[in-house]
């Protein structure tokens, strides 16, 4: 049995008690005329995500104990997350000791790209799953030397919907939006932009070729999330990346 979360290889659904209370009210209850069924009501009042949230809290405690600053990168497929990670890891080398968890439905293509930067990487394949969860991340994180790690970057499955609901134990969610996607993405996928603390507006080198309205995009992101921090970057040319590194450096120093 796993000592971290108590799972066994065969049985991943197992836990008992998530701090919820349970009390019974015994009363008879007719199910429509003539059914005669007698039901006993059990009040549960349990958060459906309680198990994930508990495991995420464990992850957060583990990361804090080891002094690791953790970001959960989310976006639609093709926003340039992996290129942005490669560039960030190469430019931050020497300033911070980093590791990466890659989430994709299939293939280890992204992990191979990250490994080429010299940074330790673990690939999680979710199969049919549309998001990473705290259980997967908790196991992957234990494969790193956490004592000698400053920064853990988690690249979530490319999906602007589902990963918004699943806390992984990160310090912040960082949403990546590329200028080829349309400036109204924050309004179309408000849950994700509401959940994120930082937005990286990527591929700004392509702006001269597009009708993308940066000011409008910033305004829409701020409508959904007034406190969101926005960096305009190009992972390809390096434009704007220094501001992002500045924020990252400060947060790693303060670990939060």
């Amino acid at each position: 049995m796993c000592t971290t979360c108590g799972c066994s290889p065969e049985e991943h659904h197992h836990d008992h008690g998530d701090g919820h209370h349970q009390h019974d009210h015994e009363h008879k209850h007719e199910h429509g005329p003539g059914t005669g069924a007698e039901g006993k009501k059990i009040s549960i009042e349990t958060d459906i995500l309680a198990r994930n949230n508990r495991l995420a809290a464990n992850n957060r405690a583990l990361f804090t104990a080891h002094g690791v600053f953790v970001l959960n990168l989310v976006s639609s497929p093709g926003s340039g997350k992996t290129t942005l990670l490669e560039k960030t890891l190469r430019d931050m080398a020497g300033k911070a000791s980093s590791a990466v968890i890659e989430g994709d439905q299939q293939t280890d293509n992204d992990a191979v790209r990250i490994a080429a930067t010299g940074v330790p990487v673990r690939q999680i394949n979710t199969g049919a799953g549309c998001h990473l969860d705290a259980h997967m991340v908790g196991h992957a994180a234990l494969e790193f030397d956490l004592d000698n790690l400053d920064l853990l970057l988690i690249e979530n499955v490319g999906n602007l919907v589902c990963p918004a609901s699943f806390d992984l134990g990160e310090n912040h969610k960082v949403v990546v939006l590329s200028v080829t996607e349309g400036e109204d993405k924050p309004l179309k996928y408000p849950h994700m932009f509401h959940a994120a603390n930082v937005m990286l507006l990527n591929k700004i080198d392509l702006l001269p070729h597009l009708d993308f309205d940066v000011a409008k995009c910033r305004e829409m992101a701020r409508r959904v999330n007034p406190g969101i921090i926005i960096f305009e970057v190009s992972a390809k040319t390096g434009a704007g990346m220094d501001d992002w590194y500045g924020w990252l450096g400060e947060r790693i120093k303060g670990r939060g």
Partner: protein
Amino acid sequence: MHELSITQSIVEICEQNSQGRRVLSVTLELGQLSGIVPDSVEFCFEACTKGTLLEGARLIISSIPPMGVCRDCGVEFPVTAYYDSCPSCGGFTVELLHGEELRVKELEVE
């Protein structure tokens, strides 16, 4: 389709709390801003409950309309989306009071 894993969690929670009895009905509270589509949960429910204590159970979903309070002027108002502005002062700094619930409220067992 994270409704599938959400529904699996619902089944797990119910089985842990049903005291080994067959479940007749499950009542959920889903906030309209929870990011979960009730129809999808209903769709997944039948598949996820097959062979469990919940097989054949009735799924009752209570949908909770979102309410927010404006942090600028303090007015409370019904929210329809995260980008709603305050109807009184036009501000976007809105704190949600309800509407993100994702809860198994009650079970009815044999």
